[in-house]
Structure formats: structure tokens, C-alpha cells
């Protein structure tokens, strides 16, 4: 196990603070390990799943919080409980089929059984066989239950934390971002489907990308040319508590961007002939889901959660660290129980924007890989994040700022102690 006691000096964060990110954090194994204890087991809320995945008592889903496998289930009382997916006996992973329904949680190795409240209820051969062997009389099953996470449920979303020091969810996230969760998730949700991507980059490169409004209309050329999302549209960034979380939003009907985006060296200038050439317009058909004319919101909750509204394409994303240079990005697309056939069909059509083949999101999967390779030879150097200032305050009504990216790093530095 690598020595992480001198992590702060090993990372040596530059004096410019969150306007710089030392490249070492994207590949150092000691940093990766330190993140497990300080972020994933630390005072932060982590997305665990959707209530819609747990329709009945005993329904469960499996999720990773950092590198810890977790079971999320519907207990006897109809509440949601979350436990570390590990037998108290020898550490075996208890459940290994990603979703299902159980009457109890049973370990296949030695038949130790836990009820839906995580209590150890039976141990094979506890009393021995024919008077020989078995557990000693002072073995107490109630001392060997499953490790439980604290759970918070909001509008069908389930979050969990390992730490007693984590603030309550609303304080952790901030009132405006909690309001957006209520805005998008208050109606009963219907899961449309799920998939994931293996990304060849550190998990933080993905979440930084999501928290960055600067790239959206540039890297995603489809955005700018198709006038889906331009920085010239009315919009802005709202910050969550301490700037750790963010929400970027824009209103599509207010664009005045042809002058900026139609001029070289903007890449969208070259593509202007294509911009006239979209042959099918059904992908452009959409409605105002929430009655506020806001056609795009992308919200993060530090460290790994994203709530996406791309017109009527709604989804949750969760990024899970695997190794220092790889991560897995999970997507769950959803609509509402009260969507009629037309709305369901349009949401499914607009899902062309998202996911591994997303007309908009495709580049997010690969850009981290380019950064990961670009920085490999210069781990003592840093990135430069100075658009819109050097702190975490957003600029009112503007997305020409990297404040929300700097805000992620403010959270990271605080929890990591670097």
C-alpha cells in the first residue's frame, strides 16, 4: 500500500489555487487510493439509484460508490436501505447479479443470511453437527450485521453517504440545485433504459467536462451548428453550496449567435453549409416540459452525479472510478409515467443526443482520453482555468466562465486536504 501521508506535499497544489489543477491528480495511484477514503467514504453524498428500480419489498440494485460495492434495496417497511455488499464472515461479495429481488441476502459461500435490514439471522452449522464443531457460545450474530450507509431520498432519487460528518442533503447541495431536482424529478419517473461507457480517462476528467459550460458549443459541433446550445443564448450557471456543484442552463428560443458562431476561427463557421442541411426535423420537435422555457439544464452534485435535461431527453449519469486512468460512465434515461405515446416517442428519438453515440455527448467520452494522453509526460505541470476569473463565483447570466470547474476543485481540495 503506497504511503499517502505526504499527499499534500506530493501533489504540491500551485499557489494560484483552483485556477490550476496539477496533472498528477489524474494518474497517481496514491491519490486514487486517498480519494476512496476522503471522498467516497468522506462527507459527501453519492448517487445510489432510483426508487423506480425498487418496485417491491426485496427489490435491489447494485451500485459502486468509488470502489466499494453497495446493495440498495427496498426493505420490509417499504423504506430504502443501503449496505456494503460484503459478507461479515470473509468479505465475499454477497449479491452479484446487478438487479433483482430477494427475500433475504444470502452469501453463497457459507450460507450466512441477512434480513432486509442487514441483520445477520443465520449462520450455517452454528450449533455444529452432531454435537461437534460450530460457533462458540459467545459468538453474537448481532455484532456481525451488514455495514449500513445513511440514505437520503428526494423525488425518486436515492443518495447515500458513509460519513456521519456529511451535512444534510439540502445544505450540502444548496437550495437552487435542490429546486432543480424537484423541477425535473417531481413527477413519477419511468425508466426508458440504461447503458454505460468505459472511458479511458480518470473519473475527474469526465465530471470536469460536465461542469464546464465553455466547451459545450465548441467541442460538440452539433450543438453550435444546429443552434441547440450556444453561449450566446440566454442562460447562465448557478452554483451549489461552496461552488462544489453546479447547474448550467439555457433557453433555446433566445439565441442571437449567428455573428459569433458564423465567423472563423470558430469551427462552426466552416460547418455552416452543413448547418443548413439537416434533412429531418423531427429531432428538433420538442415541448416545454416544465413551463419555464428553459430547454437545457445540466446539473452536477459533487462528486460524481449528473442530472441532464437536453430539451426532452432526461437522464441521470453516474461516473464510477475504476483505475487512475479509467472510469465507467452509467446512464439511466427516464420519462414520466404520464407521458403519452407521442412524448415517449419523442424522448426516445431525442435520446440520439445522449449516450455513447450521442450527437452531443459523444465527444465527452473521448476528450478525457486525449487529455489523459496529453499530460502523461508532464505530471508536475498543471492546467490553467482562468476563464471568467479565478474563483468559484459564476458570472450572472453568462456561461463564458470556468467558475463551475474551479468549484469542483474547491470541493476536491477540501475533502482531500491538499
Amino acid at each position, binding site marked *: 500500500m503506497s504511503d499517502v501521508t505526504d499527499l499534500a506535499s506530493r501533489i504540491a497544489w500551485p499557489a494560484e489555487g483552483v485556477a490550476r489543477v496539477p496533472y498528477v491528480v489524474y494518474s497517481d495511484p496514491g491519490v486514487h487510493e486517498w480519494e476512496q477514503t476522503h471522498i467516497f467514504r468522506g462527507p459527501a453524498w453519492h448517487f445510489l439509484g432510483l426508487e423506480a428500480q425498487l418496485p417491491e419489498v426485496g427489490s435491489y440494485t447494485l451500485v459502486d460508490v468509488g470502489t466499494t460495492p453497495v446493495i440498495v434495496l427496498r426493505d420490509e417497511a417499504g423504506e430504502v436501505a443501503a449496505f456494503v455488499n460484503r459478507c461479515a464472515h470473509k468479505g465475499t461479495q454477497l449479491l452479484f447479479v446487478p438487479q433483482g429481488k430477494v427475500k433475504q441476502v444470502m452469501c453463497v459461500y457459507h450460507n450466512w443470511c441477512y434480513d432486509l435490514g442487514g441483520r445477520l439471522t443465520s449462520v450455517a452449522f452454528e450449533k455444529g453437527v452432531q454435537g461437534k464443531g460450530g460457533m462458540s457460545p459467545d459468538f453474537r450474530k448481532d455484532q456481525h450485521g451488514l455495514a449500513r450507509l445513511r440514505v437520503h431520498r428526494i423525488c425518486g432519487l436515492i443518495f447515500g453517504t458513509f460519513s456521519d460528518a456529511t451535512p444534510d442533503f439540502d445544505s450540502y447541495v444548496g437550495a437552487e440545485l435542490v429546486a432543480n431536482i424537484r423541477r425535473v424529478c417531481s413527477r413519477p419517473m419511468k*425508466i*426508458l*433504459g*440504461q*447503458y*454505460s*461507457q*468505459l*472511458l*479511458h480517462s480518470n473519473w475527474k476528467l469526465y465530471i470536469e467536462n460536465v461542469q464546464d459550460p465553455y466547451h459545450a458549443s465548441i*467541442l460538440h*459541433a*452539433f450543438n453550435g*451548428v444546429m443552434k441547440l446550445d450556444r453561449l450566446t443564448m440566454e442562460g447562465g450557471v448557478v452554483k451549489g453550496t461552496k461552488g462544489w456543484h453546479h447547474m448550467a442552463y439555457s433557453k433555446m428560443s433566445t439565441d442571437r449567435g449567428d455573428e459569433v458562431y458564423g465567423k472563423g476561427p470558430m469551427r462552426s463557421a466552416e*460547418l455552416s453549409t*452543413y448547418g443548413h*442541411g*439537416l*434533412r*429531418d426535423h*423531427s*429531432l428538433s420537435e420538442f415541448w416545454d416540459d416544465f413551463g419555464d422555457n428553459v430547454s437545457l439544464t445540466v446539473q452536477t452534485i459533487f462528486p460524481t452525479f449528473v442530472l441532464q435535461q437536453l430539451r426532452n431527453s432526461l437522464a441521470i449519469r453516474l461516473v464510477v472510478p475504476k483505475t487512475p486512468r479509467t472510469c*465507467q460512465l452509467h446512464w439511466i*434515461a427516464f420519462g414520466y409515467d404520464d407521458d403519452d405515446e407521442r412524448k*415517449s416517442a419523442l424522448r*426516445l*428519438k431525442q*435520446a*440520439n443526443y445522449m*449516450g*455513447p*453515440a450521442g*450527437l452531443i455527448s*459523444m*465527444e465527452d*467520452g*473521448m476528450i478525457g*482520453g486525449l487529455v489523459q494522453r496529453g499530460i502523461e509526460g508532464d505530471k508536475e505541470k498543471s492546467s490553467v482555468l482562468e476563464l471568467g476569473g479565478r474563483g468559484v463565483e459564476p458570472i450572472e447570466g453568462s456561461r463564458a466562465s470556468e467558475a463551475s470547474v474551479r468549484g469542483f476543485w474547491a470541493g476536491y481540495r477540501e475533502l482531500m486536504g491538499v
Partner: protein
Amino acid sequence: MVQVAADHPVTASQARALLSDYVAILDDGPLADWPSFFTDPCLYRITTRENQERQFPLSIMLCDSRAMLYDRVEATEKANIFEPHTYRHVLSDSRIVAADGATLKLRTSFLCARTMVEGDFSLFVSGVYIDEVVQESGRCLFRSKTVVLDQSRIDTLIAIPL
């Protein structure tokens, strides 16, 4: 295997030839010819085995007209940014699962290897093509093609249709 009547407008070998030509276009280009393999309207979608089995309707790609197919080609060739790569599809024998009216429905397993221009090679995806083939103006075309990937976890991205 379902028997195909001798006078069925689409023969098994015609459907099979259509499939071979189809993957050749994806492997060797030009991608601009891809939409010409479909009727208009049509259905082309990529999904995962997990979503199929759980009856989730989400697609990874979804096109229901030639126009959408052309738009996907244009996005791939002119807008989307990704590291250059090529595909190599390998097909199993096809199984005819239905031959009713004017439509031949067949299932074909496939492997698709992806080679990045800078060298990395992987067995990228495997799955099954579920195809409905019809005759239109003397040509065999896909009225619908459903690509069901065995994998729910995709390596990086899917830029070129499968």
C-alpha cells in the same frame, strides 16, 4: 429455420447478399451509401441485450426515415469529433425466422472489430442483427434493422453506425 416459399418476393440468398453488401459499406465505405440500404420510412436502431430483455425501449442510435439516416451520416462525417478508426464486421450464417407476405425476417450474429488509426485494436462489440427485408423497385432493402448488442458497456463511443 423457417421455409421460404419459392415465389416469395425476397429470397434467402438475396437477403444474405444485402447483409454482406451492408457491412461492406460500413467497413470499407462510402458511409454516404448507408442510407440507400433502407426503405423510407424505415427503422434503424442500436440497443443492448439488457434493454431488450428488460423491455426498455431506449436506443443508442435511432433513425426512422432516410432523412434521419442521412443526418447521422453528415453528423459522423462533418460534425462529430472522434479519433479515426475503421470497423471489420464478421457475420454468422443467417437464420430465417419468418417469411410472411412480402417480408423476410432474419437474425444474423455479428462481431465487429474496431481498429484505431493510431494502432489500438479491439473486439469492439458483438450482437445480433434482427432484419426485415422487403423488395422495392427491384431492389432488396431493410424495412427495419435492429442491432442488439451483447454489451451494455461500450468502449468509449460509437461514432459509425453498426
